[in-house]
């Protein structure tokens, strides 16, 4: 079985596109596919999006005393996990709500298109918005584009419809199933016209798949909690995720060991070999010896240094003594002595003798160490503590065996006692168990005892009943006991080479294997939430059920035409098996022998951009844009309706007394002037 390395995605910072005079003069529209996962930006004349980046920015925290870092956007973030907690997105689900983030994303995009016109962006903007985007959100977006960048015109479109436009422009009826990062939409389009009343949204998307796998792996491998990151979960889904054609059947296959072994993916997490590999006793002894040798050497060096120092001092002092003997004047003697911090001659003499003996002693010591071989002095093993305390080592082989068995038994008893206590505690925690009932019986018996012949407590054994009643079972897991067990194990390890500690994890662990993730059933379990949102606790219907629900809302004829053209788009539809699964689900949903057809978008995650580009290049585009005048006169939420747009329902004037947060009103009124 091959072991796969985990693929950590490295982003490459976006390059700056050149802003040719041709682009500048032609008023080429700029197309934004503003998705909650990726943002794709490009000129309507470009073959492919000029920029594709994650719609995220990382704003470094403003720590006191530290210089404020740069805000990183999209592909500038080269390690997303390092800034995981500083990440911001303009999206709340699939709707843009954080417009200051949106503004920075737009800044970034325009800057990377190298637009250099002063104070305005002289290009029509095409930008996608969520289906049924709330007017409030559009007001702010229009405000941002018109007031912030002074763009000439803006056009809004729905990504799913644009994606369909890219692959097929027929006026046939189609049922679009668009799986996004946060939401999945089922959109019926009848004869080229979207039937908005019957659209459905499931609040499950690619994000939830990643999240689910991330959490599952973290719970499966709590030791690698930090190594399992959201972005790694994402790459694991990209590389190994698949959608089961028949989940219920396939899930049963995984219960089989052989099937599991064949299909499991072993993923190697990066790891470092720990420096302190467990040493054999021989190696340990070797190491100890080496250390001791080093210590002896250090000591010897220190002694020699001291000796030299002392000898030097002695030389000085003897010289002083001779000098003093020559000098007559008392005063001069005093001053000479003071130079050495000595008060009188007697003291000088004393110090000299002291030094002499000291030097002699050091010399002896050095001679002793170098004379005898070092080995001998340090070869003495530090004795094992236990030997000193309470275990006497028998000489005989037979005796040793007996004694070892005894130790084994002691240890076993202790461990048994402990597990028994654990079991008892667990039993006591619940009411129904025999142990708990026995306890209650004892308690009630104690309480029932009649007053007159109450001789409780006369015998010492009477008090034992409290031990029985005690939930803890009288005594608790003491540290002393744990220590004792460890000690016994230590002893066993020393005297019995065959002993392998049970509770102590001292057995050699294969680090490499310990750092492997086994990606088995999870490969299809995570993407399955698209079809069974109940797996993550959502009560919403899955894709298949929603499609069924939508189709049932139509006459048989219309439903047939919709089922005859089911179109899948959006990033997660690229997960292998999606199309097959959808076919299987349609077969189940549709009446017997009816026809249906499911097709997958060619480039599911980019087709919306291509569709938008196609639309921007069409003649119809200029009829669908909103100008700055429209924005000012018709309201900031105004849009022109066309096949890929939301429908325009102007914000109603609120009823008096209805509490509407005021800013939406002020925005509206000021724009209505």
């Amino acid at each position, binding site marked *: 079985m091959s072991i796969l390395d985990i693929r950590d995605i490295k982003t490459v910072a976006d390059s700056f596109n050149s802003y040719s005079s041709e682009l500048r003069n032609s008023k080429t529209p700029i197309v934004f596919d503003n998705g909650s996962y990726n943002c794709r930006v490009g000129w309507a004349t470009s073959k492919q999006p000029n920029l594709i980046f994650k719609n995220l920015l990382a704003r470094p925290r403003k720590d006191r005393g530290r210089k404020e870092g740069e805000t990183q956007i999209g592909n500038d973030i080269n390690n997303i996990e390092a800034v995981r907690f500083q990440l911001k997105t303009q999206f709340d689900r699939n709707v843009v709500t954080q417009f200051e983030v949106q503004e920075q994303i737009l800044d970034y995009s325009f800057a990377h298109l190298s637009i250099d016109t002063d104070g305005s962006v002289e290009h029509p903007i095409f930008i996608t918005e969520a289906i049924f985007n709330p007017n409030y959100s559009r007001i702010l977006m229009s405000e941002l584009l018109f007031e912030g960048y002074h763009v000439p015109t803006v056009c809004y479109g729905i990504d799913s419809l644009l994606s369909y436009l890219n692959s097929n422009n027929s006026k046939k009826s189609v049922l679009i199933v668009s799986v996004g990062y946060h939401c999945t939409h089922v959109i019926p389009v009848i004869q080229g016209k979207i039937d908005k009343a019957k659209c459905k949204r499931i609040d499950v998307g690619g994000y939830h798949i990643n999240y689910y796998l991330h959490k599952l792996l973290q719970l499966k491998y709590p030791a690698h909690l930090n190594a399992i990151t959201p972005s790694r979960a994402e790459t694991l889904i990209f590389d190994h995720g698949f959608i089961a054609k028949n989940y219920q059947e396939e899930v049963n296959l995984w219960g089989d060991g052989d099937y599991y072994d064949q299909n499991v993916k072993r993923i190697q997490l990066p790891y470092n070999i720990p420096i302190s590999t467990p040493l054999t006793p021989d190696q340990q002894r070797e190491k100890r010896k080496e250390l001791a040798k080093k210590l002896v050497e250090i000591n010897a060096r220190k002694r020699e240094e001291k000796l030299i120092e002392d000898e030097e001092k002695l030389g000085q002092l003897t010289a002083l003594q001779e000098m003093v003997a020559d000098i007559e004047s008392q005063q001069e003697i005093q001053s000479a002595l003071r130079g050495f911090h000595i008060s009188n001659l007697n003291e000088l003499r004393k110090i000299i003798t002291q030094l002499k003996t000291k030097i002699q002693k050091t010399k002896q010591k050095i001679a002793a160490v170098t004379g005898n071989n070092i080995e001998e002095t340090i070869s003495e093993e530090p004795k094992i503590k236990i030997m000193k305390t309470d275990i006497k080592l028998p000489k005989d082989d037979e005796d040793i065996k007996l004694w070892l068995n005894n130790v084994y038994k002691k240890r076993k008893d202790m461990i048994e006692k402990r597990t028994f206590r654990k079991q008892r505690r667990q039993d006591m925690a619940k009411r129904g168990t025999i142990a708990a009932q026995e306890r209650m019986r004892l308690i009630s018996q104690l309480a029932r005892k009649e007053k007159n012949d109450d001789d409780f407590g006369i015998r010492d054994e009477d008090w034992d009943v409290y031990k029985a009643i005690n939930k803890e079972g009288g005594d608790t897991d003491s540290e002393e006991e744990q220590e004792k067990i460890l000690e016994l194990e230590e002893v066993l390890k020393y005297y019995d080479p065959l002993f392998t500690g049970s509770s102590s994890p001292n057995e050699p662990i294969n680090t490499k294997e310990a750092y492997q993730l086994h990606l088995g059933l999870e490969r299809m379990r995570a993407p399955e939430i698209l079809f069974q949102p*109940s797996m993550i606790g959502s009560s919403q219907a899955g894709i298949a059920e929603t499609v069924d629900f939508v189709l049932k809302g139509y006459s048989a004829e219309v439903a047939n035409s919709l089922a005859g053209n089911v179109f899948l788009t959006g990033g997660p539809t690229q997960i292998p098996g999606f199309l097959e699964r959808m076919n299987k689900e349609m077969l189940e949903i549709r009446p017997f022998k009816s026809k249906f057809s499911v097709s997958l978008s060619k480039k599911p995650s980019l087709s919306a951009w291509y569709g938008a580009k196609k639309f921007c290049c069409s003649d119809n585009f200029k009829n669908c844009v909103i100008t700055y005048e429209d924005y000012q006169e018709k309201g900031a939420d105004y849009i022109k309706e066309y096949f890929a747009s939301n429908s325009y329902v102007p914000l109603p004037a609120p009823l008096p007394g209805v509490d509407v947060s005021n800013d939406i009103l002020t925005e509206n009124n000021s724009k209505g002037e």
Partner: protein
Amino acid sequence: MTDSNSAEETAAKEKRKFVFKDRNFSYYINISKKKTWKSLKQIISQEHNLPWPKDTIHYSSVVTPPSFKPAKKYSDISGLPAKYIDPQTKLYYSTIDEFTIVRTLPSDIITGYLTLRGEHNPIG
């Protein structure tokens, strides 16, 4: 003092960097500190309170209906179809082996699985 200065500095820097922007318009620099943006939830509830024309479809009204099928049960730890529920931890499990594992799991892992399945509600 220093804070406002640095804010102005960055503002100036941003402006120089992005020549295509209106000099006086920026959510990021002018508003962000005082204004918190409405969340989607707030926007939706605000939408509810407005007198829309009849039959207007909103973001909140297109959400898919709840599933009519009973949710299938899968073992929390292995993902295999689960026949049993451990009454003590409330985890789903499929085999006896799994049951012994379930019983040795620490409580944080148990709540982790329950939360992931949407079963665990720490508040009530």
